[in-house]
């Protein structure tokens, strides 16, 4: 809501700069986003000019007028001015900027030769004066409202200070001058005289005809409906300039006198009004429901298919308005309408919000009804509009019809100590009573209890807490003391939370940079990522309203969005891109029926809550990494070393080690990865149970190609939730001997397809308890070994817990290890 400070001053008598009003309103809870001055930057004179004569100059590309304008004797009388606009006639009053005047934006007016004439000033449009954006022509003042030569600035509102207020959903009353004025009066501690306390001046209804009839078919959704009738109204009457100014200052355009008045009264009182052309109506006007499937064209020229549950305004022929949102094209008043039916009604906030959302239509009216309009004000607002219509446009008042459901006043009982208890500061009971009275409540104070009747314009006040807020905000949040509460002794981060932090830090120390990518993916991404049609990773939740139709799904794998992030980095010239991301992934879709419908009136039952939890997709916490480019950069020390598959496996090991778990690697296949260079990753929990945790390896060359990654780029992804669940809470101390070590090397030849890890396992099992450690230190394949074979060289360390090993013991253990490898892996001792 935009409103001029001068209007507030008129309603309250508070004469203060706009900035000062803004500060006090902010402290009271109205969000004033700014204060602007109308026509800021304008220097010099603007005067009213009377157009005496117009000479049309036709020899130019566009029509040009040479006008003789009387700007008053004190400004030099009649002067010639060139003007390109066509929207005025001889005898009109216009606004003239005299030579020497500087318009907003720094444009200085001077007397100059143009189009073969001397132009001695400028006839101004709204935009040129900084009033608004209207540039359809020059501003024409209503006829005979001012003398030529009068200062035009106050007439058009230059210098007015406009407060821009963002009204929160709970403060519908602040969408009116009346509501804001009340807040200003409280803020400046002056008594407030409500504009509705003044009775509009209306003549007695004429008896010449019957006023249009009205009804409400749905008294729940429309509990008050009034329809007033005016005939013989002058459709060509001018809107007074002061009203035009206020409309413009509030951000609304002047349309015609009748429409301007309905808008003005809405701004003044907060009650939306709608004017119909009486001659286009047939029969009774009702609030009610349309036929299912009825086609209805709104004012914005959009045809809408209605359903029976919509709240509309109808006459005997059908729908003539979407109640509280927008009128229809058919019954709209035009610039020739002389007989008018004026609707002023109260609609249920939820019904209007639903309509507005359903038809994606937000209007000044719907914004007010959604937030709640004063339940009682419709008849008054209608009378106020009629008063203005008759005053400015003439005509006869025929009468008003109305229907109304019984009204209920909200009464809330609170302890007079409650505001003190919630605020944490002493607030005397009398002050509570005074403040609630100031916002319009009627308060009965008895035995420490307050019985508070809420005013009709505050439908947002429904609970005790709402009353507390009213009291505390008016005292001022700046007066609240600042005290730290004492929480019970805490337990710090959980084990899982600590491990998540530790893993991220470990990868950062391993040289990777964390990035955060959007978790949105689509079919094209999955094709480039080589995910086959029936892969379980395609089972993802789908967004009903994605940002881009090309990415409607939520990732089931970090790599789906991290690989594109790697591409972006490489595209920006970072050939080497070691990056990682830790975050949620989403497994499985959400079925439309699976989530139970629950009330917020009480705690859900255990069964409801469990059903809700079950219905949500599994959302484990994953960590993924992409390694593209050089693991070690080139330098004076030598050439670069590129990342290879082993770096990605080692990264996985870094993660499991950070969680106190040994990584178990085996061969795997995954379409995203190189068929021969993909590892399946597992860990063993303390119960000895193996858990699949992820994959690592070299990315498939086709994928690397699609994403423009460096050759042989690698990646890894781990389900950190599973790793953390398997991680030991307490780590066991090692038991080691200080007896001398005995070292034995074993070079074994095995088939090329036998994995080192299985040979190592066999050696370990065969070597028995004396084996302290085993490490593969060389892998060789070549002519000396033979086709299809490879040599694996292991270093074995033996140690006894209690004595120096004899040569015999060591040899025996070594032979036993070898024997097992021979049996299990077909190994042979290398010659």
């Amino acid at each position, binding site marked *: 809501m935009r409103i001029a400070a001068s209007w507030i001053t008129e309603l309250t008598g508070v004469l203060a700069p706009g900035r000062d009003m803004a500060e006090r309103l902010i402290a009271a*809870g109205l969000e004033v986003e700014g204060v602007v001055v109308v026509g800021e930057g304008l220097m010099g004179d603007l005067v009213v000019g009377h157009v005496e004569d117009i000479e049309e100059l036709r020899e130019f590309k566009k029509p040009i007028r040479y006008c003789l304008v009387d700007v008053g004797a004190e400004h030099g009388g009649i002067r010639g001015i060139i003007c390109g606009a066509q929207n005025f006639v001889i005898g009109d009053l216009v606004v003239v900027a005299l030579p020497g005047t500087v318009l907003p934006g720094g444009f200085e007016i001077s007397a100059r030769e143009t189009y073969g004439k001397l132009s001695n000033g400028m006839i101004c449009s709204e935009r040129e004066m900084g009033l608004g954006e209207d540039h359809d022509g020059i501003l024409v003042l209503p006829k005979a409202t001012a003398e030529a030569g009068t200062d035009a600035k106050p007439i058009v509102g230059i210098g007015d200070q406009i407060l821009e207020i963002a009204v929160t959903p709970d403060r519908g009353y602040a969408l009116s001058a009346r509501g804001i004025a009340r807040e200003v009066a409280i803020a400046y501690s002056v008594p407030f005289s409500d504009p509705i306390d003044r009775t509009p001046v209306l003549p007695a209804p004429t008896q010449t005809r019957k006023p249009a009839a009205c009804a409400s078919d749905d008294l729940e959704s429309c509990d008050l409906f009034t329809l007033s009738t005016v005939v013989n109204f002058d459709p060509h009457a001018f809107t007074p300039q002061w009203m035009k100014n206020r409309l413009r200052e509030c951000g609304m355009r002047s349309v015609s006198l009748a429409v301007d008045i309905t808008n003005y009264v809405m701004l003044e009182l907060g009650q939306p009004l709608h004017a119909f052309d009486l001659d286009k109506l047939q029969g009774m006007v009702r609030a009610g429901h349309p036929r299912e499937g009825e086609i209805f064209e709104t004012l914005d020229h959009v045809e809408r298919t209605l359903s029976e549950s919509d709240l509309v305004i109808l006459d005997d022929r059908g729908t003539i308005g979407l109640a509280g949102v927008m009128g229809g094209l058919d019954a709209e008043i035009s610039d020739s309408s002389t007989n008018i039916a004026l609707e002023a009604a109260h609609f249920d906030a939820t019904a209007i919000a639903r309509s507005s959302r359903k038809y994606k239509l937000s209007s000044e009216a719907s914004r007010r009804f959604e937030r709640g309009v004063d339940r009682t004000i419709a008849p008054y607002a209608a009378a106020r509009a009629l008063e203005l219509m008759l005053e400015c446009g003439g005509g006869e008042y025929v009468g008003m019809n109305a229907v109304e459901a019984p009204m209920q006043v909200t009464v809330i009982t609170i302890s007079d100590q409650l505001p003190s208890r919630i605020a944490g500061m002493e607030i005397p009971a009398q002050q509570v009573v005074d403040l609630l009275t100031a916002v319009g409540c009627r308060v009965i104070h008895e035995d420490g209890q307050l019985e508070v009747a809420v005013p009709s314009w505050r439908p947002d006040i429904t609970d005790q*807490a709402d009353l507390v807020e009213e009291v505390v905000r008016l005292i001022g949040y700046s007066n609240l003391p600042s005290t730290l509460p004492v929480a019970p002794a805490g337990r710090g981060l959980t084990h899982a939370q600590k491990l998540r932090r530790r893993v991220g830090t470990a990868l950062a120390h391993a*040289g990777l940079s964390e990035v955060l990518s959007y978790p949105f993916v689509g079919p094209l991404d999955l094709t480039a990522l080589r995910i086959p049609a029936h892969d379980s990773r395609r089972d993802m939740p789908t967004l*009903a309203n994605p940002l881009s139709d090309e990415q409607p799904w939520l990732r089931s794998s970090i790599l789906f969005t991290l690989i594109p992030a790697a591409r972006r980095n490489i595209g920006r010239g970072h050939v080497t891109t070691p990056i990682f991301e830790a975050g949620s992934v989403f497994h499985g879709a959400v079925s439309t029926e699976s989530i139970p419908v*629950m009330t917020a009136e009480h705690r859900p039952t255990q069964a409801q*809550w469990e059903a809700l939890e079950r219905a949500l997709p599994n959302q484990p916490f994953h960590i993924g990494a992409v390694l593209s480019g050089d693991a070690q950069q080139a330098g004076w020390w030598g050439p670069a070393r590129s990342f290879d598959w082993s770096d990605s496996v080692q990264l996985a090991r870094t993660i499991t080690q950070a969680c106190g778990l040994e990584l178990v690697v085996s061969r795997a296949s995954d379409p995203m990865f190189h068929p021969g260079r993909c590892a399946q990753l597992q860990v063993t929990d303390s119960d000895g149970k193996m858990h699949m945790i992820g994959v690592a390896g070299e990315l498939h060359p086709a994928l690397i190609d699609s994403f423009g990654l460096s050759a042989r780029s690698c990646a890894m992804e781990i389900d950190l939730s599973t790793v953390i669940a398997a991680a030991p809470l307490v780590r066991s101390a090692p038991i080691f001997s200080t007896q001398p070590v005995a070292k034995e090397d074993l070079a074994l030849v095995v088939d090329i397809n036998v994995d080192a890890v299985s040979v190592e396992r066999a050696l370990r099992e065969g070597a028995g308890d004396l084996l302290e450690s085993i490490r593969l230190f060389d892998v060789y394949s070549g002519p000396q070994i033979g086709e299809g074979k490879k040599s694996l060289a292991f270093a074995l360390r033996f140690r006894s817990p209690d004595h120096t090993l004899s040569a015999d013991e060591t040899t025996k253990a070594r032979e036993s290890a070898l024997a097992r490898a021979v049996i299990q892996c077909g190994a042979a001792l290398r010659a």
Partner: protein
Amino acid sequence: MSAPNKEFDPKQVSDLSEDSVNRMVAAALTAIGAAGDLSELKEVRLAHFGDRSPLALANREIGALPPAAKAEVGKRVGHAKAQIKDSLTSREEELELLRDQQALLQEVVDITVPTDREWTGGRHPLTTLMDAMADVFIAMGYSVAEGPELEAEWVNFDALNVPADHPARTMQDTFYVTSSDSGAVLRTQTSPIQIRAMLERDPPIYVVAPGRVYRTDELDATHTPVFHQIEGLAVDRGLTMAHLKGTLDHLAEQMFGAGIVTRLRPSYFPFTEPSAEVDLQCFVCRGSSIGNPDASCRTCGSEGWIEWGGCGMVNPRVLRAVGIDPHAYTGFAFGMGIERTLMFRNGVTDMRDMVEGDLRFTRAFGVEA
């Protein structure tokens, strides 16, 4: 070599006089002192201490001396040998030390060359900032609460007193999953974690909940559809707005320096009543830029305050929705945007830098924001 002088045949070959021996010693010591390195010293040793050295030759003659002279001369020569040997040993030590020193000097490198074989990595500053803010609360005894990003609409809206037709529930803001009536959304705020925390535990509850949230905004310099918030919730007997203010002031001081406070402005959130906006005192100018065009402040736009988040007393309706008796317990809650905090705290000027995954951005922060 001469035969034993059994016949006392005085055939003098070397001069074994005191003078002569002294001369030999003097010559030897001079030569030792002049030896510049170990190989020169080796030659000196050979010349003055070797088998063919004058002293050695002289020594041989001792046998030819009359027995009466043997003892004296023997003693003289022995003393001379010891003198030379000591000198050789100490010179050798000197020269070895010199050699070792010179060897190290040969190994001089340019110590200023680059040493960055390995890459340095970093954690995303949004992550570390969330951790840092959470740590402030952990130190006060709070726990870190969690919840899913794909959340039930009941938890994200209904339980938080956002009624069915509230503008925040329209399609403009919320990502709906499957369909607009499936009951599942991408959480639009971290507040649903409050609901879970209150359903999972009994009061007193003191939790903080950092996390990722979603709104259907297009990415630009100040908006992103995926962003982060941190949420705090306390439910206990007798909690007041003064406690809320005290908690926010403590957070401000921990994150922005001693003496920095917050300011509350009345506002509206469905899940709190009373509700307030939280402003942070500008930690750069501390308000000195207000009305002072000569010392304007970019951080706060010379307003003295920076909009930081929202807060309020937990709406009793929310307590009711999770089965906590609003007559016995009160609560406060607050939330702030992490991206926004990072922007003004660390001087990030464009939201896109945080979300596009450019590793230069992360690397610059290391493992702390």
